[in-house]
């Protein structure tokens, strides 16, 4: 499987990438680690005329503390997130979820920003960012803006990132005392989750993000509210699938996915100490 021919541009800075996007408009796609985009291009589901390679913008690969927030550069590879002492100690759920992405080879290339910008409801990391209450820094021609995760995923494979914009940083409130759990149910080790649940409990705050339970990454708001009002894990998890429209495919139908969402949410809450 070989992609359709395209023009290749190597971005040498974030500003250069933005100018290339401005030049080529919706014919261009950004290439980071390539582990979401290249498979789509090989299957010819994506046929960009221009590929703008941002994979060498090493100044967008970092994990650093910024007051109450952990700031992670969008081009930080999964492997570097997974093994970061700061990520593990401040937002452990993200390290756990990242360690479940694909396989070691994928994690050596794939990036946090790339996975989030892809906006795939079946991806592990959006659910973790939802549970942790993160936000995304998006740079465009007229400057940067910060978008909370609840406004970031706008539809199937769609995000708030405009065609002329670039995701540069992911910001996550530090939660060193939080307990958490990442529940991923799949058939084979490296597969996508059939359903997944990312759970974080930090004092009164509870965050629950679900994988593969709707057309976009979703928050289980009913579960969070139930926990906040003192419900047990089992009672709270009963509402995990309420109002959601999960896909039906060879692995699981709608009813089975809803069942999995309730079970995995309950297990997650229990593992997180609720």
């Amino acid at each position, binding site marked *: *499987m*070989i*992609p*359709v*021919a*395209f*023009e*290749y541009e*190597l971005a040498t800075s974030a500003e250069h990438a933005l100018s290339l996007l401005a030049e080529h408009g919706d014919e261009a796609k950004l*290439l980071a680690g*390539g*582990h979401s985009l*290249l*498979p789509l*291009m*090989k*299957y010819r589901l994506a046929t960009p005329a221009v*590929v703008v*390679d941002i*994979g060498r913008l090493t100044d967008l690969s970092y994990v650093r503390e910024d007051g109450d927030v952990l700031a992670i550069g969008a081009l930080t590879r999964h*492997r570097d997130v997974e093994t970061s002492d700061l990520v593990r100690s401040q937002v452990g759920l993200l390290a756990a979820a990242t360690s479940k992405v*694909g*396989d*070691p*080879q*994928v994690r*050596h*290339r794939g990036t946090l920003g790339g996975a989030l910008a892809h906006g795939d409801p079946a991806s592990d990391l959006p659910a973790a960012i939802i549970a942790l209450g993160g936000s995304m820094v998006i740079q465009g021609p007229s400057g940067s803006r910060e978008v909370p995760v609840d406004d970031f995923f706008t539809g199937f494979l769609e995000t708030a990132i405009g065609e002329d914009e670039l995701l540069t940083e992911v910001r996550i409130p530090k939660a060193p005392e939080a307990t958490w759990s990442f529940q991923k149910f799949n058939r084979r*080790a*490296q597969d996508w989750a059939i359903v997944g649940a990312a759970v974080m409990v930090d004092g009164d705050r509870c965050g629950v993000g679900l994988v593969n339970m709707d057309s976009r990454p979703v928050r289980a708001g009913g579960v969070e509210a139930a926990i906040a009002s003192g419900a047990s894990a089992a009672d709270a998890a009963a509402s995990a699938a309420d109002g959601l429209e999960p896909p039906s495919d060879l692995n699981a139908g709608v009813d089975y996915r809803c069942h999995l969402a309730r079970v995995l949410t309950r297990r997650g809450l229990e593992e997180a100490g609720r």
Partner: protein
Amino acid sequence: MQVSMTINGADVSHDVEPRTLLVHFIREDAGLTGTNIGCDSSSCGACTIHVNGEAVKSCTMLAVQADGQDVTTIEGLADGETLHPMQQAFHECHALQCGYCTPGMVMAAVSLLDEVPDPTEAEVREGLEGNLCRCTGYHNIVAAVLQAAGGAR
């Protein structure tokens, strides 16, 4: 466009289309056919090589993304006639049946031990989750990796 990289210590440079996959660059332009293409969809791991010392699936990387990088393939592991310890362990443990997955399996295993030098059996199995053996010969593959890890101690 001109793409240049180091493969197994040798400079390799070819004029290729941007859409050329790294695995095709390695097999067809560099002429190194030890790296196999299996699923061609980043699932099976047969095409695993090292880029700057880390295991990656060369079917899911463009050759241009490896421009200027240091690539190692299965042909680059042995020192002349002396097998790499991982190759030796695969040989001694009979860690292959048809052999198709073996180059990728060995490259993934070498990368795994770089990151986890003294793994448990569970860590080996999890660390090789990106590589499929359709003969299902995992038992001896895991044994070989554990033996290689032991030899390095």
